[in-house]
């Protein structure tokens, strides 16, 4: 800013800026009230000291979190959470793919009846094309090859 004002032809009175604030205060009447109103206790500043040893050794009070009541509460909460996690996370996922063949066989043989299967069938919609077409010659050949002794044995 000062450089911009160089050689511009304008001049200011000597010490104008230095005395500006004084003049402003006089003008505003602030000079007359500028005397120290705030006081301190006697020798307060002379005796002011900071005890740094207190700053360094200042330790917050340790409050034990393991009171009997709190310990019981904490244990109960932990047990509840553990139980919930066990029930939700370790739940076996039963899908058809993981089913053992023997289990399925046992279930079909012991736990079901023909009527159960009949429930899944809708005879109204059954059509001839739903059944295998077996050639009568093949059927005759198959029938002739059955060993009767085997059937008797079974």
């Amino acid at each position, binding site marked *: 800013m000062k450089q911009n004002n160089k050689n511009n032809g304008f001049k200011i009175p000597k010490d104008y800026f230095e005395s500006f604030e004084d003049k402003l*205060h006089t003008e*505003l009447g602030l000079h007359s*009230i500028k*005397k120290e109103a*705030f006081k301190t206790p006697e020798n*307060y500043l002379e005796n*002011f*000291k*900071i005890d*740094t040893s207190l700053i360094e050794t200042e330790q917050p009070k340790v409050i034990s979190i393991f009171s009997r009541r709190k310990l019981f509460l904490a244990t109960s909460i932990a047990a509840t959470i553990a139980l919930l996690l066990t029930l939700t996370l370790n739940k076996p996922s039963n899908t058809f793919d993981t089913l053992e063949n023997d289990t399925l066989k046992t279930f079909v043989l012991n736990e079901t009846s023909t009527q159960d299967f009949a429930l899944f069938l809708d005879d109204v919609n059954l059509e001839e094309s739903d059944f295998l077409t077996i050639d009568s010659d093949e059927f005759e050949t198959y029938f002739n090859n059955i060993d009767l002794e085997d059937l008797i044995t079974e």
Partner: protein
Amino acid sequence: MIDEQELVKNLINESTRQKAFSTLVSLYKERLYWHIRYIVKSHDDADDVLQNTFIKVFKSISKFKGDSKLYSWLYRIATNESITHINKNAKRLQISNQEAQDLAINNLEADVYFEGDDIQLKLQTAIATLPDKQQLVFNMKYFQELKYSEISEILETSEGALKASYHIASKKIEAHLKSH
């Protein structure tokens, strides 16, 4: 004359810290006290804030990077601590910050460490009506007689802006004094 860089070096060094800190307190306690006192008004509050300021300085001296001058760093901590103190008082009393400042002015009348007359009380009331930044600038210039260059370092504001701020503050105070 104490070398500021040397003082900072001694404050950071653990073996010389205690002595250097005592020197720092002796050097700055008076200036910081008055800076704080003009903000918080009561002596008891100023004493609390001054203690807190030096404790904070002691604890965080290792964080002082020397990017600014030591005195401006100290003044900034003192300013922040003073404002925090006013905010805490306001919160404790469940009133606004402005109401907390007004309360501090009202308490001056009964304060044994305030010997101002009516006009000085009115001046304090007028200062309290200014925005926070203008209050700071006015107090630092009018009462503490700091140079604009110093205030500029402390408040990190340009000297031009500070001059404008001080001028506006003075005019507002004049208007307040005339109307009350």
